[in-house]
């Protein structure tokens, strides 16, 4: 493969401008060298700059400096990466593929944010010095240097996420650009960022365990910090839903309620068990404020498609109400019951919210299957949320119990996800689309399905136009058996890609209305004329850049590499929480509320 090549005449479908690579390499290289020099000077006692910064952060939060400063940096890093990720998704939806991994301004926010997550973890590793030693769960680096396990977990999460970038590039070369959030390497970026919050919680618990009794954060500050951390966890787990938030999901709609219920059960259960009364509600409010702010920035300010977001308030209230019962004294059982309630009642509340604000309302087509998947996943997630809360407080059940619950929950999640991604394409179906011009470059449409019985109660039947400088989604209006019409004009020229999308049960398919010629991927134009065209797999139209002729074995091997990285990260996080739980005393946190579930934790173990 040549190291360098000339850009083709049409927009390239891969590669990065060499100048971008050199500039970014030089910039980050300098920053890394400066940070390394600072770390060496700090550990050899030749500067007190880091110690003074950490002490200042510690004074304001009541935590040791090696907890406070890295937590602050990680929080800023995650907000930076989150903004970058949502901006990146909206750019892809509105403008299409990148010309390369560094050709999109949003990628810099993601890269800088993820690098900062890694740097924050390493900061926690190098900071403890002299009398200010990390707690009993710390890991020996040298005979005179111990690192908090939370710092190592944050750094590992950041590194895992960063590895997603070069792997993403390799992936694009093997399989073409996958313009979907759910590409395996894209998931690495999101998962690494989201799960770094577990590292922060572990670090925070280590900080508490290392302080003498009675010394530490004031009750209010401590509770706020924990609520913000769980709000952040909720945000991180919600990024997986982004395609649904924007209105261009490439997977079946049943996955949406499942992801919302799972994220809510895991984060809100752990928040309530660790943060006490009001913590689950506080985490949901924090989520709404931050995600709402970024949505405003993304849409009205930057002029890109605006993402919606889940409500979570209903689930948070349910968790708070449930915690008023004696169930809260048995955290694992509490997690399971809370998951059950979130998967059922919480999902019903989110369904109503979907009709109010989401681009794809949860129609009756998905109710039964969505309910089963949501409930199963939420029960597992609630159990894991309970385990996390116990683990961070040094009260993890016996390893055989913890591991069984964790593995069983992951298997349920994997099974539900596998069920969700299985979709079918009708073998002999087509759509007759009659277009009527409606202004320059726009048209309205009359649609006739063949066979007419193709959709009886669709989750969606819509015209979607994207990547032409915005996003237009028009849910079609039924006019008779198998016939529909548009409710507004949709763009059908320029670089817009316009298609008729149909999702009913397991059927997930699309028929092209207008696709521009694209020399970079040797694709011909599909003209915007009234015609009858076959329904085909959506991926052929939504991801034109994908190479669909790559062997299944190559795809399997590449997926297994990504899976291996993910298993290593989950194992590392589990090991860290387990190590913390075994080594810290199980005395209650001095800033925890009196009704905390730890009072009866022993009963659950």
């Amino acid at each position: 493969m040549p190291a360098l090549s000339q850009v083709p005449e049409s927009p390239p479908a891969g590669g990065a401008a060499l100048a971008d690579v050199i500039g970014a390499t030089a910039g980050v290289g300098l920053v890394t060298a400066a940070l390394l020099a600072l770390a060496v000077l700090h550990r050899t006692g030749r500067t007190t700059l880091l110690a003074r910064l950490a002490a200042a952060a510690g004074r304001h939060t009541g935590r040791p400096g090696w907890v406070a400063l890295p937590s602050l940096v990680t929080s800023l890093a995650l907000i930076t990466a989150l903004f970058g990720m949502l901006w990146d998704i909206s750019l892809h939806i509105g403008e299409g593929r990148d010309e390369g991994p560094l050709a999109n301004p949003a990628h810099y926010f993601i890269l800088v944010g993820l690098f900062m997550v890694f740097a924050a973890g390493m900061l926690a590793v190098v900071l403890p010095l002299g009398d200010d030693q990390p707690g009993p769960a710390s890991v020996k680096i040298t005979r005179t240097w111990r690192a908090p396990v939370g710092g190592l977990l944050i750094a590992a999460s950041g590194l895992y996420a960063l590895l997603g970038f070069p792997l993403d590039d390799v992936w694009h070369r093997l399989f073409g650009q996958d313009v979907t959030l759910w590409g395996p390497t894209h998931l690495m970026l999101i998962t690494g960022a989201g799960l770094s919050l577990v590292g922060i919680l572990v670090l925070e618990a280590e900080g508490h365990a290392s302080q003498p009794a009675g010394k530490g954060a004031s009750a209010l500050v401590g509770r706020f910090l924990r609520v913000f951390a769980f709000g952040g966890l909720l945000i991180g787990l919600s990024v997986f839903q982004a395609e649904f938030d924007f209105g261009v999901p490439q997977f079946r709609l049943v996955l949406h309620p499942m992801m919302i219920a799972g994220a809510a059960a895991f984060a809100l259960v752990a928040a309530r068990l660790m943060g006490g009364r009001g913590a689950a509600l506080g985490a949901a409010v924090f989520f709404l404020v931050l995600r709402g702010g970024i949505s405003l920035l993304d849409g009205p300010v930057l002029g890109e498609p605006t993402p919606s977001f889940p409500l979570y308030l209903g689930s948070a209230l349910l968790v708070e109400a449930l915690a008023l019962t004696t169930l809260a004294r048995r955290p694992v059982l509490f997690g399971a019951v809370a998951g059950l309630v979130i998967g059922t009642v919480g999902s019903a509340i989110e369904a109503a919210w979907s009709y109010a604000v989401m681009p794809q309302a949860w129609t009756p087509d998905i109710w039964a299957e969505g309910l089963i998947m949501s409930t199963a996943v939420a029960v597992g997630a609630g159990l894991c949320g309970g385990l996390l809360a116990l683990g961070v407080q040094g009260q993890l059940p016996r390893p055989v119990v913890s591991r069984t619950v964790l593995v069983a929950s992951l298997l349920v999640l994997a099974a539900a996800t596998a069920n969700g991604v299985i979709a079918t394409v009708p073998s002999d179906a087509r759509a007759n689309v009659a277009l009527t011009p409606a202004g320059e470059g726009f048209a309205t449409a009359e649609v006739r399905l063949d066979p007419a019985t193709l959709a009886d109660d669709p989750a969606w039947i819509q015209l979607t136009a994207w990547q032409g400088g915005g996003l237009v989604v028009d849910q079609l209006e039924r006019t008779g058996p198998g016939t529909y019409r548009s409710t507004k004009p949709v763009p059908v020229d320029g670089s817009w890609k316009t298609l008729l999308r149909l999702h009913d049960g397991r059927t997930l398919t699309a028929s092209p209305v207008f696709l521009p010629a694209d020399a970079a991927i040797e694709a011909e134009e599909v003209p915007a004329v009234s015609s009858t065209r076959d329904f085909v797999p959506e991926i052929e139209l939504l991801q034109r850049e994908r190479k669909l002729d790559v062997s299944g074995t190559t795809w399997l091997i590449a997926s297994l590499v990504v899976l291996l990285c993910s298993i290593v990260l989950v194992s590392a996080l589990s090991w860290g929480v387990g190590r913390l739980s075994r080594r810290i005393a199980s005395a209650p946190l001095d800033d925890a509320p009196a009704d905390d579930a730890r009072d009866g934790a022993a009963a659950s173990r």
Partner: protein
Amino acid sequence: MTAAPDVVLAHEALLHALPFVVPALVVVGLVLSIVWRDRREERREDRSGS
């Protein structure tokens, strides 16, 4: 119409990894090397002590 200027593209995956991933891997390697050297030193001291 003026032709767009040529842009040189980097086509090696390793080049794309350079800016952010390699520095992180260098840091990890550095810490691991410190751990390895300290363990080796510790074993040597233990042997000479016994």
